[in-house]
């Protein structure tokens, strides 16, 4: 048997089973989006597989079924018994074909008749539906459709904002802002800060900022979406990646440039055959090599960027899960997520959810005290868990920080000895910090009582194993009575960082867009000196100002009457970065500073711009370190 056919028989059976299962589930609960997606995926994957083994008739039948479900997904058709029945019938036929293939090792003959029949029945069904549909659709399907449409609308506005033509740019920005604000209103989201962010970007005429605001709206939409409660494991891994059209266009552009560069090398080769000065040739070759190096580098980046996802994909279910878990242990807790837009390779994003969830569970179970104990300790009764993600050079740092009781080191020492994790002599030599790290040792669990959450014999060693398998590290630190922080340091193999370019003292710099809260213009007179520093009061908050131009030693002309400030959030604090001009939004692959720049404070990394210039991306944390007000 052809190896493809062999593989097809195995996979096909699984997919038929999965499709059956999801279709039955969908019939029971017509509004169940996960079931609908699952069934659709099964049909879609089967169709693709049929295409690979050249089973055209099967692909045709499956295509018709997929179309029918696709109409349900877009809210254009209801889930009906005949529809489910026909889809199941289609899968039965596929199953029968697979049996024949296994027996004969080849595509069964005469499949066309059955396929035609199925296609015809799907067509009939659709025209029957079309007559039924206009006035009464399943309300749950409409609700799902509304949030899907909202999301599509927001994505479309982002694309519109990415249009480069200067003609009509203001109109595009304005209309995108109106649509985004209307989607917010329609969804009834808590809108004040998002609306003001939209407003700010409108006033500043800043498409990049508006795109960011829209990203946040998309984020809160996803949080609002009712997710199936329960564990994350139930989610099958995505086999597809949604790719920004712009990223594909960049690939196409780069390929074109590569072709040109390739031709140039051919030309040089022909000249080498003639009698040409070798030094001249060397110069030409060197230049072409440089060009190729740059293009291939960019191509590599672009290809990697196709696999990049925001951590949001992993984080989006956490708020709800934490709420449920907090409820089940009776300890009120709030999860605060920062940096969900940080991007990482798809494989990292998908694999990190489970370990983080485990740590969150641990925090609720062991770290956080109940409300009575917290009150006695002078803490607010509702605990806060911060989940922070940020890019640090070439790694992604994720921290889970709770404000609980911290780890009891004395008790830990006792348990470690009792469980044989470390000997008394070893423990005596270990510092408290080292002892705390023992929680990652295999089989270590300090829960004196098994609870429903984390005490099921799965310890933090599982977390460590999972993280190390990704090429990451995990560490823990704790302060008695104050809380515990678990830090993950992960590679991203590939990562695109969105930056906003700014100009100061005639130079261009990048600022991680992640940190940018808004852009404001303030009168010079509103800026006050506070000690040696400067600050401005913004919505009742005092914001320290860092003048980038002055720090770079720009000729100290008269300061402009209106200051352009980039309000950034650094480590939870707001800061104002004064710049001469705001530039574009770019997605760049950040490299750790090396060579002359290595070790220079204030530099987060560098990236090569399209024209070969180096863009220095600022490390805002280091800049505002000395500018506290």
């Amino acid at each position: 048997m052809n190896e493809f056919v062999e593989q097809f028989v195995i996979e096909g059976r699984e997919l038929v089973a999965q499709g059956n299962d999801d279709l039955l589930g969908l019939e029971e609960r017509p509004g169940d989006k996960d079931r609908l997606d699952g069934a659709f995926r099964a049909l879609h994957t089967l169709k693709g597989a049929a295409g690979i083994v050249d089973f055209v008739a099967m692909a045709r039948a499956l295509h018709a079924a997929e179309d029918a479900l696709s109409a349900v997904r877009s809210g254009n058709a209801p889930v009906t018994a005949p529809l489910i029945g026909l889809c199941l019938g289609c899968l039965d036929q596929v199953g029968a074909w697979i049996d024949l293939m296994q027996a004969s090792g080849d595509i069964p003959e005469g499949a066309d008749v059955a396929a035609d029949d199925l296609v015809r029945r799907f067509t009939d069904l659709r025209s029957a539906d079309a007559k039924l549909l206009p006035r009464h659709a399943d309300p749950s399907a409409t609700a799902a459709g509304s949030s899907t449409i909202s999301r599509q609308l927001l994505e479309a506005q982002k694309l519109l904002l990415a249009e480069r033509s200067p003609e009509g740019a203001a109109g595009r920005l304005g209309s995108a802002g109106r649509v985004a604000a209307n989607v917010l209103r329609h969804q009834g989201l808590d809108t004040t800060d998002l609306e003001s962010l939209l407003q700010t970007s409108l006033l500043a005429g800043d498409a990049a900022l508006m795109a960011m605001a829209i990203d946040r709206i998309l984020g809160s939409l996803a949080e609002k979406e009712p997710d199936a409660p329960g564990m994350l494991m139930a989610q099958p891994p995505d086999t597809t990646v949604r790719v920004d059209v712009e990223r594909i266009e960049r690939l196409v552009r780069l390929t074109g440039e590569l072709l040109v560069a390739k031709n140039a090398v051919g030309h040089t080769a022909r000249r080498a055959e003639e009698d040409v000065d070798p030094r001249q040739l060397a110069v030409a070759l060197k230049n072409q090599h440089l060009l190729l190096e740059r293009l291939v580098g960019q191509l590599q980046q672009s290809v990697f960027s196709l696999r990049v996802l925001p951590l949001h994909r992993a984080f989006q279910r956490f708020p709800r899960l934490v709420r449920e878990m907090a409820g089940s242990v009776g300890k009120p807790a709030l999860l605060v997520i920062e940096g969900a837009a940080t991007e990482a390779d798809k494989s990292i994003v998908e694999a990190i959810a489970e370990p983080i969830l485990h740590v969150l569970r641990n925090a609720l179970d062991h770290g956080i005290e109940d409300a009575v104990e917290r009150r006695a300790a002078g803490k607010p009764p509702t605990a806060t868990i911060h989940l922070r993600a940020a890019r640090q050079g070439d790694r992604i740092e994720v921290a889970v920080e709770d404000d609980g009781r911290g780890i009891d080191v004395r008790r830990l020492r006792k348990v470690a000895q009792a469980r044989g994790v470390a000997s008394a002599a070893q423990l005596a030599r270990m510092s408290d910090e080292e002892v705390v790290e023992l929680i990652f040792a295999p089989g270590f669990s300090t829960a004196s009582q098994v609870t429903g959450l984390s005490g099921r014999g799965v310890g933090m060693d599982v977390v460590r194993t999972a993280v190390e398998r990704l090429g990451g590290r995990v560490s823990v630190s704790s302060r008695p009575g104050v809380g515990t922080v678990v830090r993950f340091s992960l590679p991203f193999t590939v990562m695109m960082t969105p930056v906003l370019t700014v100009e100061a003292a005639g130079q261009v710099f990048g600022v991680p867009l992640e940190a940018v809260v808004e852009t404001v213009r303030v009168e010079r007179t509103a800026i006050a000196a506070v000690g040696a520093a400067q600050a401005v009061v913004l919505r009742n908050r005092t914001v320290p100002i860092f003048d980038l131009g002055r720090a770079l030693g720009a000729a100290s002309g008269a300061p402009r009457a209106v200051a352009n400030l980039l309000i950034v959030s650094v480590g939870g604090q707001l800061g104002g970065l004064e710049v001469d001009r705001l530039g574009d939004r770019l997605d760049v692959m950040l490299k750790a500073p090396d060579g002359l720049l290595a070790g220079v404070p204030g530099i987060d990394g560098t990236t090569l711009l399209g024209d070969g210039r180096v863009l220095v991306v600022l490390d805002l944390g280091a800049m505002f370190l000395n500018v506290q007000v």
Partner: protein
Amino acid sequence: MTEPSGKRILVIDDANLVRRFYRDALEHAGFQVDEALNGVEALEKVLGAAYDLIVVDVNMPQMDGFTFLETLRRQAPPVSSLPALVISTEAAAHDAAAARAAGANFYLVKPVGQELLVEHVSIMCGLPT
């Protein structure tokens, strides 16, 4: 008929039947609807009255949908920032990028059912769920 939404929509299409179909759906959902037969007529209308959304076809005599949108986006605000929903024929499905370049906020391919149209228009006008 649903109670008035207070939102005013301009439907631009040269086909009487299509305009009628959209008007019927939108009015039924409580929108106030005006009509224009082509881009030129539409431009006069948007400069003369405040709309919440434009629903526009692509292929029309005199001034097509894309030219109309490009012209619209070059007007002074607030006219320039009128949200626009383009509805085009299936044959022109690859035109989504062209519509965007012209300044369209969203793009639907015909046939668009009444329900789908109303849903898009309601969200784009910010009506509550």
